[in-house]
């Protein structure tokens, strides 16, 4: 960090000092404390999901099963998917950075429904408990996609327990979404018009819309699976007149918007990191806001692209293909706008800026491969292979996780009042970029060469790229452990942060670091647009 250390200004206690008991944390209404609670929980689940990933990559070093049986491997990738999707990626940025920053960025004292916010965290924890119970009782082997009739009639594992866990955490999502929508509509400070909102706020709004409308569909679909297992209902069972492809439609109707739940917040974070790192306003603000809304809306219309070879009609394939190409346009706009924002900027390469630049590169690579998959004729070859695995990891890990970490690094001084070691942080960001590419780029090649996904055994000809990928995973793991170490270290030994160590624009930087419990001494009056840096 190159900012000179400012002395701690004389003002009231920060939100961290307003009560030290466990009760003051577990019964808090303060959105900032709830954000911390979520951060701890999702870090724990990220670790669990990461351990599952390491087991998978270790197993895949050799073509035949060496470390574990096929059953265990199948449970490992199922657990990895369930935990990473529902207990890490979906809550991550909204429940941590979103909860912390949303009221601050719009000049409010808290979210609209603080008790509902706390209740959302408890729902997350209950869902998590069910998932851990499922793990301890032997796990689930259906894949995170729960395709029927395997999940309803053939799997002997704890499918219902897993379904309940995800059902409950889904409501955590829904209530967070309701909270955010109402907060953005009703609680903006005077003068904070829609077009003066930071892009991160727009991204929270867009993601809340998707959470609120898509997640109930997942909840009901999981309930139907549970019903089939318990009562043999038959809606997905062909022997009773049902249709397994109907499950796929219901499941993907939620799960495609879900991936936008995972990426929209990341896009919001990146816009904040870029503007602060470049010390200039974003290029094309209105295009950026509308492109996020377009992604949210069109994202509901493309679910069939997960099902091109499922037995769907040729015509349906045509419709979903064109819509999938169209949904790529707003994402392309964003990448170009971020790049253009660098033009004539005053760029500083802090760790957050490095994460943001890494995001743009990796999101671009992941997004372009999405075009390959949108082309039905190509998707026939590429679907269900490692090409798809690489594609979604580029977006979710190269994209969302990097943005999340970038955001954590950027707002760390605000959240904790401490500064971390800038040099190590930059090194970790670069290490992550390298480790990520070494892990996942070979998977594009493997997929193109025909290696299917969810394979415990594979043909020997695929071994070389698998070994390289697993080696990359070790580097990636180290790059995740480093921030854990130096960020925790900074809590105790890091120099104290001033109110605005990055000299960034935004209402959150006009409060002390860390902020007082009610955020602002007095209600701010907003007169400028966002990113009002000197030209």
């Amino acid at each position, binding site marked *: 960090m190159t900012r000179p250390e400012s002395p701690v200004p004389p003002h009231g206690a920060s939100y961290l000092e307003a009560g030290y008991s466990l009760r003051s944390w577990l019964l808090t209404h303060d959105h900032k404390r709830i954000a911390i609670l979520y951060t701890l929980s999702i870090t724990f689940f990220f670790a669990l999901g990461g351990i599952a990933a390491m087991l998978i990559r270790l197993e895949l070093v050799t073509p035949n099963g060496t470390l574990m049986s096929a059953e265990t491997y199948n449970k490992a990738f199922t657990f990895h998917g369930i935990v990473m999707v529902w207990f890490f990626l979906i809550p991550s940025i909204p429940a941590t950075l979103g909860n912390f920053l949303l009221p601050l960025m719009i000049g409010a004292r808290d979210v609209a429904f603080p008790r509902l916010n706390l209740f959302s965290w408890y729902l997350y924890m209950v869902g998590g408990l069910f998932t851990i119970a499922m793990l301890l009782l032997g796990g689930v082997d259906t894949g995170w996609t729960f395709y029927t009739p395997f999940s309803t009639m053939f799997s002997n594992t704890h499918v219902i327990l897993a379904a309940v866990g995800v059902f409950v955490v889904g409501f955590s999502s829904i209530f967070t979404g309701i909270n955010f929508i109402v907060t953005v509509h009703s609680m903006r400070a005077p003068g904070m018009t829609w077009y003066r909102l930071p892009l991160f706020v727009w991204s929270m709004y867009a993601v809340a819309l998707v959470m609120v409308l898509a997640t109930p569909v997942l909840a009901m679909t999981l309930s139907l699976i549970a019903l089939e297992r318990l009562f043999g209902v038959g809606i997905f069972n062909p022997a009773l007149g049902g249709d397994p492809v109907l499950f796929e439609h219901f499941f993907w109707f939620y799960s495609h918007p879900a991936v936008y739940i995972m990426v929209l917040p990341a896009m919001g974070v990146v816009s904040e990191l870029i503007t602060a790192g470049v010390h200039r306003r974003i290029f094309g603000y209105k295009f950026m806001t509308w492109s996020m809304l377009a992604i949210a809306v069109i994202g509901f219309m493309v679910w069939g692209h997960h099902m091109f*070879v499922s037995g769907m009609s040729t015509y349906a394939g045509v419709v979903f293909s064109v819509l999938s190409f169209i949904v790529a346009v707003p994402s392309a706009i964003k990448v170009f706008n971020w790049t253009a924002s660098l033009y004539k900027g005053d760029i500083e390469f802090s760790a957050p800026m490095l994460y943001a630049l890494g995001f743009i590169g990796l999101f671009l690579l992941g997004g372009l491969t999405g075009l390959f998959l949108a082309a039905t004729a190509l998707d026939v070859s590429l679907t269900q292979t490692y090409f798809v695995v690489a594609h979604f990891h580029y977006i979710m890990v190269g994209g969302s996780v990097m943005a999340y970490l970038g955001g954590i690094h950027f707002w760390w001084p605000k959240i904790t009042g401490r500064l971390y070691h800038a040099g190590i942080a930059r090194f970790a960001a670069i290490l992550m970029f390298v480790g990520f590419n070494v892990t996942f780029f070979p998977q594009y090649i493997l997929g193109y060469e025909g290696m299917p996904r969810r394979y415990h055994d594979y043909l020997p000809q695929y071994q070389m790229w698998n070994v390289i990928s697993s080696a990359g995973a070790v580097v990636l793991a180290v790059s995740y452990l480093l921030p854990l170490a130096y960020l925790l270290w900074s809590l105790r030994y890091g120099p104290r942060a001033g109110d605005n160590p990055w000299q960034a624009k935004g209402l959150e930087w006009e409060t002390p670091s860390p902020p007082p419990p009610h955020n602002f001494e007095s209600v701010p009056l907003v007169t400028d647009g966002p990113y009002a840096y000197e030209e």
Partner: protein
Amino acid sequence: MTAALLPAASNFAGSVDALFDALLALSALVVLGVFTAMIWFCIKYRRGSGADRSNRHRRSLGVELTWTLVPFALFVGLFGWSIGLWERMRTPPADAAPVYVVAKQWMWKVQHPGGQREINTLHVPLGQPIRLLMTSQDVIHSFYVPAFRVKQDVLPGQYTQLWFIADKVGTWHLFCAEYCGTDHSRMGGSIVVMKTADYARWLEAHADVSMAQQGAALYRQLGCSGCHGAESSVHAPKLEGLYGRRVPLSDGSWVVADDRYIHDSIMLPRKQIVAGYAPIMPSFEGRIGEDDVLALIAWMKAHPAPGERDP
């Protein structure tokens, strides 16, 4: 370029690879362009460089619209190209020779019309269109041949199809590409492409009771003629010439008696009742397997009504 990574052994492979290569080239161009711009801007406009930063963004609408509409147009072009190929891949020629595939945990059971049976292997002739008619005995599987660039999910309770023309002699990998349980990754096999003469010899060497004859045997064994036979006193639809004919149903609609219809009439007889008949057909679900159903269908295809051509 991409053929180096993966052999091309079917009529589709060339076209699929061309589309892939085009997308690869486009992606490389975009990545090069964006990365170059990013790196250039990062170097030129780093803090402390004396670059000129005045007049940063005056008008941006033109630029914005350009990089909205140009990608949109490119994407629509790619979509159009892909759709043409997609329709071709989904429309088997009328003279494609059928082969029947039943997937079950965790193997592929293949049957040729002449009765030749294979497990986890499929012998096909060079240069002739082959149409696979597939169903699953249990969960969803997927028939995937990377060298042919084809893949199709195989569903329980439904028939799905896949067609190709193998244009290179050799042995090519077959994978299951839809997670189906414990041994999903071991549910592989081979496609063996043979020159026409060799294939004919192979067929002859492995000929067995043809599927139609198997079907006839099943028809007798299971006592179907008890109701469907000419001398039966039970009022049941006649099966000769039924395949491919339009059938009136009790709810007033009409269906074509295709593979799915025949399958469901045997396994799920209550699903569609023929007009004018009582719903008394018993279900054979659990009593016979999917491959037996395929044999019965083959028998029905081979029995036109007296005086009719083969369907």
